[in-house]
């Protein structure tokens, strides 16, 4: 079976990598258009203050300034992903709600002029009491950040399945723990940038984004410009990690400035602006209560999770839910209650993150290890006992189809000698395991599906048109590889046009892990439809049956008599002669329960399929300093089938860095609404010297619906690597962690708690 494919399953060179190693790949800040102006943004110095007056007059008088705007130049329409979360004005006129919020902006001939003009903008504020802690924000009498949301509760996700209280009462062992975690920085290498060009009533935009179609719709609404006149163009993205999924204040600002100035405008944020004013990651507090039978079976789970939501809703309902779902898609809970609260505070906007929910996920896993130990079981046994298997239904009624969870647990534990190391811990050494499942797409209305258009050109080359988005993970190359396999032409013969709202069709984007299962599936269907036409003509011309035709290396030939052959380009030309050129469309729409809603109806089929994964971390603790190092990390991921194993490994390795190593070093630090570490000197991201020796294991469960059996390629590790590290530290210290990241002071504290020394 492994040899049946020409390119699928092979370690192919990514189609986008040549432009990236020669420095020719364009990113938004690299764009230069004739007459392009430079924009700068004036930001709020207050965490919470009324805007009394904004005066742009003096700024507009600075020579070289072509436009200046504030919220009073907008239609005052508030953005929200959902009907019930429309609370973000992008440029506020009533009050500011966090330090760094966009208040006014200018466009000028160069950066210096723009900065000078900013200094002449006068904004009168009346400071208001602010609130920074979500638990305090929920109390009666706390400062209200939005009038529409009482007690600052933005979202409450309430899930209640079975009889939790009764099951807890009858459980053999019950344990309750609370875990905290700081939000991390996305720290994508490319700071946010946007270029807007308004000409002849059309608005063209370039920016790193995970979904151009969602972005275009939002801007069409905010600017009252018809959707077909807002065109988000394709551009390379310097990393997203969940942080570039929805419209950003900068998009509105650059667009408005371009409309006013009548020319193209570029807004490129600094590293610090990127950290304080684009999306951030939720800080969280997770109370986890678990009931188990004597044999280790989980009988009940009870959760109260508080997410620090910052000033606006963003993807709030999704963010409040996802940590729970990736866990319930992995383990069997007959009775479960989840109360997730997302609470407004006077801090920056928070969105989804690739590693979102570490306090909850690592908390669940570490607590399970301690309960297992009490019952005389080890982490491997307890996970195998409670892990879901193919054909089972989750607590909130999602059916699991292909499932390689068991295999990921077994392979990673065998490879690391897990059981032995866990049971006989050497002093200050530990091993830990984390598991999770990942939905491959989730309900996003009519944007949940994707479609692709393919045409064969007269030289036999192929043009693919798809909404599929690449934020660096290799989705473009994935689409080309799949088309190459189906059409029998090499990857270099395939030209891709993608993520351009003028020409591409709707697609979920590089969001919700849907690119492979949904976007690439549509590419496959379109190419299969084109293939059928090629095969039909080739069979006629070669005088054989259609089933006997093989397309490979640009040639159509008979399987039985390979010398009976013709170039595919000849077939294409014949099709032109017949007045029926080889063009085809194809689409894929996942089987999801579209009645499902994050808050009002949290049950039903979440996704077309789920991926599964297990991480194993081995740690060493310096007894003097409390510093943790991670010499070895092993990750096993069930991606259905790897289309390009090298790309899947790359996703897993990056996840070990961004979720795993981050567990000992990454976290945003706040002081009364100020982000203390907005730059890359103060916020340390793992470097090459911080990385463990990595071993990746790819498990192929062959999804019945995925393209060539594929599912998403690596995100489970991004959602369980933190668990593995936290569990390993718990194994080494003999105590459960209380707060992430596991910085030396917290680890020392854990060691002393174990010894019974009070600090």
């Amino acid at each position, binding site marked *: 079976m492994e040899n049946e494919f020409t390119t699928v399953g092979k370690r192919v060179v990514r189609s986008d990598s040549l432009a990236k190693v020669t*420095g020719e790949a364009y990113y938004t800040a690299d764009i230069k258009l004739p007459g392009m102006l430079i924009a700068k943004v004036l930001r709020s110095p207050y965490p919470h203050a009324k805007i009394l007056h904004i005066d742009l007059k003096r700024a507009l008088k600075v020579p070289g300034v072509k436009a200046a705007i504030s919220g009073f130049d907008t239609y005052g329409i508030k953005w929200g992903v959902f009907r019930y979360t429309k609370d973000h004005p992008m440029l506020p006129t009533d009050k500011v709600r966090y330090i760094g919020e966009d208040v006014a902006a200018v466009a000028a001939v160069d950066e210096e002029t723009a900065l000078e003009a900013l200094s002449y903008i006068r904004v009168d504020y009346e400071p208001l009491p602010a609130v920074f802690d979500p638990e305090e924000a929920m109390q009666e009498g706390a400062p209200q950040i939005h009038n529409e949301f009482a007690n600052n509760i933005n979202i409450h996700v309430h899930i209640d399945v079975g009889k939790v209280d009764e099951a807890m009462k009858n459980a053999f062992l019950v344990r309750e723990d609370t875990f905290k975690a700081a939000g991390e920085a996305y720290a994508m290498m490319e700071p946010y940038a946007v270029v807007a060009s308004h000409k002849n009533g059309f608005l063209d935009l370039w920016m790193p984004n995970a979904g151009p179609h969602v972005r275009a719709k939002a801007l069409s609404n905010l600017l009252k410009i018809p959707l077909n006149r807002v065109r988000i163009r394709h551009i390379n993205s310097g*990393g997203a990690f969940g942080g570039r999924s929805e419209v950003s204040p900068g998009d509105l600002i650059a667009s408005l400035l371009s409309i006013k100035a009548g020319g193209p405008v570029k807004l490129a944020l600094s590293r610090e602006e990127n950290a304080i004013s684009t999306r951030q990651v939720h800080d969280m507090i997770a109370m986890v209560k678990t009931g188990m039978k004597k044999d280790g079976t989980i009988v009940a789970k009870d959760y109260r999770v508080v997410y620090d939501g910052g000033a606006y809703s963003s993807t709030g309902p999704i963010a409040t839910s996802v940590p729970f779902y990736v866990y319930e898609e992995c383990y069997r809970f007959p009775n479960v209650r989840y109360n997730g609260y997302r609470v407004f505070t006077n801090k920056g906007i928070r969105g989804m993150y690739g590693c979102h929910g570490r306090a909850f996920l690592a908390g669940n896993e570490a607590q399970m290890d301690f309960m297992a130990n009490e019952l005389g079981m080890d982490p491997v046994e307890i996970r195998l006992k409670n892990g879901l298997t193919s054909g089972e239904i989750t607590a909130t009624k999602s059916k699991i189809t292909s499932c390689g969870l068991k295999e990921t647990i077994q392979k990673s534990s065998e490879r690391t000698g897990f059981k032995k190391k866990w049971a006989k811990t050497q002093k200050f050494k530990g091993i830990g395991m984390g598991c999770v499942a990942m939905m491959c797409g989730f309900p996003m209305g009519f944007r949940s599906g994707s479609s692709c258009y393919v045409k064969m050109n007269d030289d036999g080359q192929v043009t693919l048109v798809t909404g599929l988005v690449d934020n*660096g*993970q290799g989705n473009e190359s994935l689409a080309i590889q799949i088309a190459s396999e189906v059409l029998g032409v090499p990857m270099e013969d395939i030209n891709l046009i993608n993520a351009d709202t003028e020409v591409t069709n709707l697609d979920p984007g590089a969001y919700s892990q849907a690119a492979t299962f949904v976007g690439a599936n549509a590419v496959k269907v379109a190419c299969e439809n084109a293939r059928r036409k090629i095969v039909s003509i080739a069979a006629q011309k070669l005088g054989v049956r259609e089933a006997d035709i093989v397309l490979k290396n640009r040639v159509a030939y008979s399987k039985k008599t390979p010398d009976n052959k013709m170039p595919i380009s000849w077939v294409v030309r014949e099709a032109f002669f017949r007045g029926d050129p080889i063009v085809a469309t194809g689409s894929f729409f996942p089987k999801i329960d579209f009645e499902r809603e994050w808050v009002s109806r949290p049950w039903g089929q979440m996704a077309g399929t789920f991926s599964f994964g297990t991480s194993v971390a081995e740690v060493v603790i310096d007894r003097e300093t409390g510093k943790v190092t991670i010499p070895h990390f092993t990750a096993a991921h069930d991606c259905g089938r790897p289309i390009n194993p*090298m790309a899947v490994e790359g996703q897993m390795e990056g996840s*070990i860095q961004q979720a795993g190593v981050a567990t000992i070093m990454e976290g945003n630090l706040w002081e009364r609404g100020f982000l203390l570490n907005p730059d890359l000197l103060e916020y340390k991201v793992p470097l090459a010297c911080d990385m463990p020796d990595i071993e990746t294991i790819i498990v192929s469960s062959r999804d019945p619906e995925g393209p060539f059996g594929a599912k998403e390629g690596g995100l489970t590790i991004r959602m369980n690597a933190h668990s593995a590290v936290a569990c390993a530290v718990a194994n080494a210290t003999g105590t459960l962690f209380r707060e992430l990241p596991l910085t030396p002071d917290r680890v020392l504290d854990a060691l002393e708690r174990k010894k019974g020394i009070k600090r």
Partner: protein
Amino acid sequence: MKTMKVTFRVNDEKVTLQVRPYETLLETLRERLDLIGAKEACVMGACGTCTVVVNGIPLRSCLVLTPEVDGASVTTVEGLKKDEKLHPLQEAFMEKGAVQCGFCTSGMLMTAKALLDRNKRPTKKEITKTISSNICRCTGYKKIVEAVEEAAKKSI
């Protein structure tokens, strides 16, 4: 504002420019010479995406003032290719899957080039230590280290 005359070589071509005294090499390369391979990501020398090689030494071009490179020889990622042939490092980065979003790639390549130019057979440890001057947020660095090892093998 007074400007200064600066003459230096960029990718083996001589350039003479009038620059402001506080103009950084990164600005000069990107804004005046349209060499956009070096990227701006932190402007404080923390990340290495703007790394170029000056007289054989990898430098963060955001921290170098253009007047400082007067008389020097600067190599950017655009100068890695020779006679339309990719540098072994460029080939190895592609073949080993060391490129994801690509934003750090130019800087990473230039740091690695400077290493291989002064040490033809670096150990894995030396490679890891050297590229720890540059941040990559996507790859976990494993495939980058492998690519540099591979390029070193090929270069000999």
